[in-house]
C-alpha cells in the first residue's frame, strides 16, 4: 500500500511527526516498510516563472520563443510549441536537468537554430489533469522563482506491506491513522458525519441478510462539475495508484482507499428501482463493467433491479447500469457484504477487483453510513456539488463483539509488568472498551478473536522492546534423534573415506527413475515449477549423476560423491519416506608424481562392506538380477539384508555414462536401516585379540574357468579349521593355463602358539580338499 503522508494528516491534523518517524512507529506495530520516498523528486528544480516577451520563431511557424523571468538574474530563453504563454502569464519552468514524471530528462537544445534552455510545462507534463491546453497558466499561490514543492507542498509516500491480519483492518488511510494515533497516545480519528436518512420512495430491498447484513443506498442529484480536482488530491490518488476517470468514480475509489469501504455508483437513470439484494438464480447471466459475461451461481449475491442483475455484489458492477460522463443522478451503494461470500464469488468467476480484494479481507459494518457522508464531501472537494437526494439503509448494525479480559494471562503472555488498570488503559487507546470483565471490540477489528489477540494489541502499542528476555523456567534434557545421529555418523565415515557430500533437490524429472531401473516414481507434483522437477525422487542416484555431470563439465576429473537424504516411496495414498545413502566414484588410474592412484568398483565394494561392519547393518551381497537399468549387467551386485534387497552396487551402464557424459563410474545405494532410541548397533562385540602369534601361508591356486571367487572362498572357509583367522586373495593372474589366485591364509590359535608342523598339517588338508573340487596348487 502506497500511502501519501498528507492524506494521513487529513485524519490526524495534529500529527507531529516527520515521515521517517511515522514509518518507524508503524514498523513497531507490525507494518513491513518497503520504503519512504519523496514524490515528484524529479520536479524539485521546477520553478514558477513569468513570461516577459513572446516572439515568433524565425524558422518555424508553430514555434514561439519566450523570454521568461525565473526569479534569478538574466531571463531564460525557451522555445515552445504551445499557443499560449503571453507576457504577464505565470508558467512552470523546468530548467535543464529536470526529470519529468514520464521519464524525460531535459537539457539545453537548439530548436531550428534557436537556443532553448529547459522547457515550459503543461499540466499533463507535470502529471496532472486540468489547467487547459498548452502551458499551465498558473492561477494559484506562489511567487516567481519559487519551486514547485514549495508552492504545491511536498509529498512523501510510505510504501507499506500489510500482513493478512493488518490487511483486515489497516488497509485504508483511516486504518493506519487509527494505529498511529493509538501508538502516539493521541485521540482516535473521528468518524465523518453520517448523512441524514431521507426519502419516501423504497430504494432497496434486502433478501439475503446472511450475505449482506447491511446495505445503504443514496440517491444523489449531482450538479455539472464546477472545476477540476485539486492538484493535491490528484497527486494523492495518482500516488495511491488510482487513474482518474470521472469525479463520481474517482470519489468511490478515494473513499475505498480512505476508509476501506468500497462503494459502487449506478446511473440512476439506467436502473429500474427498487434495487434488490438477493442470491442469483442458477444460470442467470450478467455482463460486467469490463465486458465479460458471467453465468451466475445461486451462491453468488447480486444487486438486481426490475430488469435483472445490475452488479455482482462486492466484486464488480454491471455494464448496463454503469456511470458515464453524462450521468447526473447517481445511485450510490455502500454495503457490508460477507467476506467469505465475496471471496468465494470472486474465486468462482476468477474475477479480480479492488472492491473484491477489500471485501474479501473484511470491512467495517459501522462504516457503511459514514462512508456515504465522506463520499459526498469528497465529491464536493472534487468539484461536483450534490444538490439533494435520498438516503436509505437496510439491515441493523450488529452489536459489537466482546472478548474476555484476562489481565493475569496478558501479563504472562507479554511479560509486561502492567497492572489491570494499565492494561485496560493501553487497550482503550485502540478503542477497546473494558466492560465488566470483558472488552468490547471496535467494529473495525474483525481480526480480534480471543484474549491472545488482546496480548498482541498491547504489545503493538507498548512495543516489543519492552518485553524482557529469559529462559523457560522448567529445564528439560534434550534428546538427540537416533536416526539423524546414525546418518551423521555415516556421513562422517564417508567423508573420512574421501567422499564429498552433495545435497540435491527432492524433485526429479518424470521418467528418470524408471530409466535408471529405480523404484518407479510414486508421488507426482501437480503444479511443478519446471518439467524436470515433476516427481519426487525414489533414489538419490539421479541427483548424484547430475552432480557428477555438473562437476565433470567444470573440469573435475576424479569424483567421489555421496548423498544421504530422504527418498519418497509408498503409495500416493500412503506415502513412506526413507533415508537412502548413495555413493558415486569415477573409475580409472590417475598418473601422479609418485606412482598412479587407482579407483575401481572394488574400492566402492570395500567401502560399503566397511560401513556395514562399522554401523552393524550386516549387509550381504547377492546377484543383481534386474536386467535393465543403470548398471552394467556384468558388474553389478545386490546389497542384501535379512534376505531382502536393500540396495545395489556396480558400474554404470555405458548408455547411462553416455547420457550423463561420464567416464567409467561406479555407484552404490542402500536404504539406511532405521534405528530405535537407545538401540545398540548390531555389529560384532569387541574382544581383546589372542596373545599368540599368527602364521601366514601363501598358496597359489589354479582356479577352473568361470568359477567365481565366492565359490573358492566358500570351499576354503568350509575346509579351514578353527585356527584359520583370515583368507584374503592378494594376487590374480590369468594365462593360457587358466586363472591363478594367490591367497594369504593366516592361522592363529586362541590358546597356544602354533608350530610349523601344526600349520603344515592344516595346509595339507586344505589343499587336498581343494584338489577334489578341481582347484590345484600351481
Amino acid at each position, binding site marked *: 500500500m502506497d500511502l501519501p503522508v498528507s492524506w494521513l494528516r487529513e485524519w490526524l491534523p495534529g500529527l507531529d511527526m516527520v515521515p521517517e518517524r511515522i514509518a518507524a512507529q508503524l*514498523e513497531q506495530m*507490525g507494518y513491513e516498510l518497503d520504503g519512504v520516498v519523496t514524490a515528484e523528486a524529479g520536479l524539485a528544480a521546477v520553478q514558477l516563472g513569468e513570461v516577459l516577451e513572446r516572439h515568433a520563431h524565425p524558422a518555424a511557424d508553430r514555434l514561439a520563443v519566450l523570454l521568461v523571468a525565473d526569479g534569478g538574474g538574466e531571463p531564460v530563453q525557451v522555445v515552445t510549441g504551445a499557443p499560449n504563454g503571453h507576457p504577464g502569464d505565470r508558467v512552470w519552468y523546468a530548467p535543464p536537468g529536470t526529470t519529468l514524471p514520464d521519464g524525460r530528462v531535459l537539457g539545453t537544445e537548439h530548436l531550428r537554430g534557436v537556443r532553448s534552455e529547459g522547457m515550459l510545462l503543461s499540466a499533463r507534463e507535470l502529471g496532472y489533469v486540468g489547467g487547459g491546453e498548452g502551458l499551465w497558466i498558473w492561477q494559484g499561490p506562489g511567487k516567481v522563482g519559487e519551486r514547485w514543492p514549495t508552492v504545491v507542498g511536498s509529498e512523501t509516500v510510505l510504501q507499506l506491506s500489510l*500482513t493478512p*491480519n493488518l*490487511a483486515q483492518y489497516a488497509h485504508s488511510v483511516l486504518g493506519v491513522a487509527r494505529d498511529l494515533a493509538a501508538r502516539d497516545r493521541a485521540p482516535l480519528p473521528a468518524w465523518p458525519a453520517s448523512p441524514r436518512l431521507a426519502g419516501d420512495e423504497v430504494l432497496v430491498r434486502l433478501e439475503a441478510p446472511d450475505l449482506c447484513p447491511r446495505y445503504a443506498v443514496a440517491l444523489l442529484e449531482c450538479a455539472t462539475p464546477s472545476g477540476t480536482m485539486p492538484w493535491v488530491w490528484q497527486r494523492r490518488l495518482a500516488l495511491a495508484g488510482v487513474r482518474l476517470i470521472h469525479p463520481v468514480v474517482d470519489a468511490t475509489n478515494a473513499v475505498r482507499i480512505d476508509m476501506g469501504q468500497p462503494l459502487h455508483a449506478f446511473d440512476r437513470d439506467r436502473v429500474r428501482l427498487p434495487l434488490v439484494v438477493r442470491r442469483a438464480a442458477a444460470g442467470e447471466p450478467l455482463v460486467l463493467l469490463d465486458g465479460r459475461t458471467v453465468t451466475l451461481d445461486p451462491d453468488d449475491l447480486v444487486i438486481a433491479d426490475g430488469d435483472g442483475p445490475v452488479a455482482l455484489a462486492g466484486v464488480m458492477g454491471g455494464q448496463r447500469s454503469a456511470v458515464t460522463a453524462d450521468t447526473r443522478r447517481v445511485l450510490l451503494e455502500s454495503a457490508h457484504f460477507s467476506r*467469505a461470500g465475496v*471471496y*468465494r464469488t470472486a474465486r468462482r468467476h476468477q474475477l479480480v477487483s479492488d472492491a473484491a480484494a477489500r471485501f*474479501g479481507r473484511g470491512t467495517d459494518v459501522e462504516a457503511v453510513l459514514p462512508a456515504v457522508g465522506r463520499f459526498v464531501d469528497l465529491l464536493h472537494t472534487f468539484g461536483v456539488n450534490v444538490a439533494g437526494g435520498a438516503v436509505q439503509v437496510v439491515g441493523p448494525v450488529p452489536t459489537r463483539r466482546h472478548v474476555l479480559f484476562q489481565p493475569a*494471562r496478558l501479563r*504472562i*503472555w507479554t*511479560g509486561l509488568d502492567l497492572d489491570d488498570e494499565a492494561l485496560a488503559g493501553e487497550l482503550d487507546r485502540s478503542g477497546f472498551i473494558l466492560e465488566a470483565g470483558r472488552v468490547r471490540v471496535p467494529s473495525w477489528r474483525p481480526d480480534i478473536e480471543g484474549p491472545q*489477540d488482546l*496480548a*498482541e494489541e498491547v*504489545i503493538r502499542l507498548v512495543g*516489543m522492546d519492552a*518485553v*524482557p*528476555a*529469559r*529462559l*523457560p*523456567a*522448567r*529445564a*528439560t534434557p*534434550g534428546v*538427540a*534423534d537416533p536416526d*539423524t545421529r546414525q546418518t*551423521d555418523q555415516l*556421513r562422517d565415515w*564417508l*567423508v*573420512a*573415506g*574421501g567422499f*564429498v*557430500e552433495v*545435497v540435491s*533437490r*527432492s*524433485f526429479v524429472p518424470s521418467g528418470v527413475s524408471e530409466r535408471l531401473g529405480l523404484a518407479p516414481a510414486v508421488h*507426482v*507434483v*501437480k503444479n511443478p*515449477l519446471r518439467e524436470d522437477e515433476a516427481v519426487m525422487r525414489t533414489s538419490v542416484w539421479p541427483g548424484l549423476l547430475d552432480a557428477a555431470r*555438473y*562437476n565433470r563439465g567444470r573440469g573435475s576429473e576424479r569424483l*567421489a*560423491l555421496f548423498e544421504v537424504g*530422504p527418498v519418497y516411496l509408498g503409495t*500416493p*495414498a500412503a*506415502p513412506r*519416506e526413507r533415508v537412502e545413502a548413495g555413493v558415486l566414484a569415477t573409475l580409472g588410474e590417475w598418473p601422479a*608424481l*609418485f606412482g598412479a592412484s587407482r579407483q575401481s568398483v572394488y574400492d566402492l565394494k570395500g567401502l560399503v562392506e566397511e560401513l556395514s561392519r562399522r554401523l552393524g547393518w550386516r549387509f550381504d551381497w547377492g546377484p543383481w538380477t534386474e536386467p535393465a537399468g543403470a548398471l552394467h549387467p556384468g558388474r553389478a551386485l545386490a546389497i542384501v539384508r535379512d534376505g531382502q534387497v536393500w540396495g545395489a552396487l556396480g558400474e554404470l551402464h555405458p548408455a547411462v555414462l553416455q547420457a550423463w557424459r561420464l567416464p567409467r563410474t561406479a555407484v552404490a545405494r542402500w536404504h539406511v536401516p532405521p534405528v530405535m532410541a537407545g538401540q545398540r548397533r548390531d555389529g560384532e562385540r569387541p574382544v581383546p585379540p589372542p596373545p599368540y602369534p599368527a602364521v601366514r601361508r601363501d598358496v597359489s591356486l589354479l582356479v577352473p574357468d568361470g568359477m567365481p571367487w565366492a565359490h573358492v572362498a566358500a570351499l576354503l572357509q568350509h575346509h579351514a579349521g578353527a585356527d584359520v583367522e583370515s583368507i584374503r586373495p592378494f594376487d590374480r593372474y590369468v594365462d593360457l593355463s587358466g586363472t591363478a589366485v594367490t591367497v594369504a591364509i593366516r592361522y592363529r590359535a586362541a590358546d597356544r602358539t602354533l608350530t610349523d608342523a601344526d600349520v603344515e598339517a592344516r595346509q595339507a588338508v586344505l589343499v587336498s580338499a581343494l584338489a577334489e573340487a578341481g582347484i590345484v596348487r600351481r
Partner: protein
Amino acid sequence: MGGNGAREDWATVALADIAAAPTVAALEALRVQYLGKQGRLTGELRALSGLPALERRARGAMLNGCKTDIENALARQRELLAQAEQSRQLEAERLDLTLPGVLPAWGTLHPITRVRRRLADVMLRLGFTLRTAPELETEWYNFEALNMPADHPAREMHDTFYLEAPYVLRTHTSPFQIRAMRDAGGDLPLRVATLGFTYRRDDDATHTPQFMQMEGLVVDRGIGLPDLKGVVLAVVRDVFGPTERIRLRPSFFPFTEPSAEVDMSCPLCLGAGCRVCHTGWIEILGSGLVHPRVLEAGGYDPGEVSGFAFGWGVERVAMLLYGLDELRPLYQNDVRFLQAFDAWDSL
C-alpha cells in the same frame, strides 16, 4: 698394547693394514690372513707347542696380546666402515622435499549439513529434544491444524506444491508442532525441535523451491514472549557470537498469536549498516506464541498452558554465517565450492 715383549713386525704391519682397509671385504681378507685357520697369528700360536715352557709362556702372552689388538682393530675398522657406508647410503637416499606433498583423499560435508548440525547442537544444549516429521504432509497437518482453514487468505502466503490429495509438500516445518504435541499426550513441559526440508513454489536469488527449516516449540504453564525472546537470543548468540542483539517486531502467522518477526544485529557489519542489511538489522526468523487453536489441535488446553514456536531458514543462517550473497550455489554441488567450507567453518 697387551702382553709382554716387543710387537713383532708382522703384527705392526697387520694393525696398519687393518686401519687402512678400504672395504668390508678387504677387512675380511685381513681377518682371514691373520686370524683364519691358515692365518699368521693362528700359525704362530700353533708353533708355541714346540717351544720350551718358559719361552712358550712369554711368547704366548705376547701373541695373545697381538690377538686382542688385532681383534679390536678389526672391530673398530668394521664399525668405521659401517658408519661410512651408512653415510654414503643416506646421502644417496636424499629426497627433494621441495616437491609438493601428496594430499590426503579426504571428503567434506555439505554446508547445509554443517549448519544443520550446528543448530541441532545448540538446540540440544538448550534442552530441546530433536525429532523428524514427514515432508509429504496432509493438508490437515500443514494448514487446518495450524489455523489455516480452506478459505483462509493466509494460505495464499504459502505457495504450495500439491500431490495427490490430501497430500502436499509441507510448506513449513510447523506441522511437526501438531505431531510433537500429540505424541507427548499432554505431558509438560514439552520442548522439541526439528530440522528438515520444506517446499514452496518460489525461485529467485533468495528463495529456492526446496529449503531447510529449523523449528522449535515449547509448551508449558506460564510461557510467554520473554521465554521466546530468551531462547531465540541464546540460539542467535550461540551461532553468531555473544555480542549479537535481537529485536522483535509484531508480525502475523496464522498459527501464532501474538506473532513476531525477529531481526538480529547484522553479523557482517556488526550493526553499523552495510550493503547487505542497510539498517544494521537483518530479518531472520518468524515466531510467536502458539495460537490457542493450534494448542487444541495438539491436544492441550489453551486455558491451562501456553507455548511459543519459532522457525528459521537453515540456508539463511548459512548465508549469514558464511557471508554468501546467493542461495543457489548451495544446491549446485560444485565440489570446488563445497571443499572451501572446511577452512571457513565456524568453531
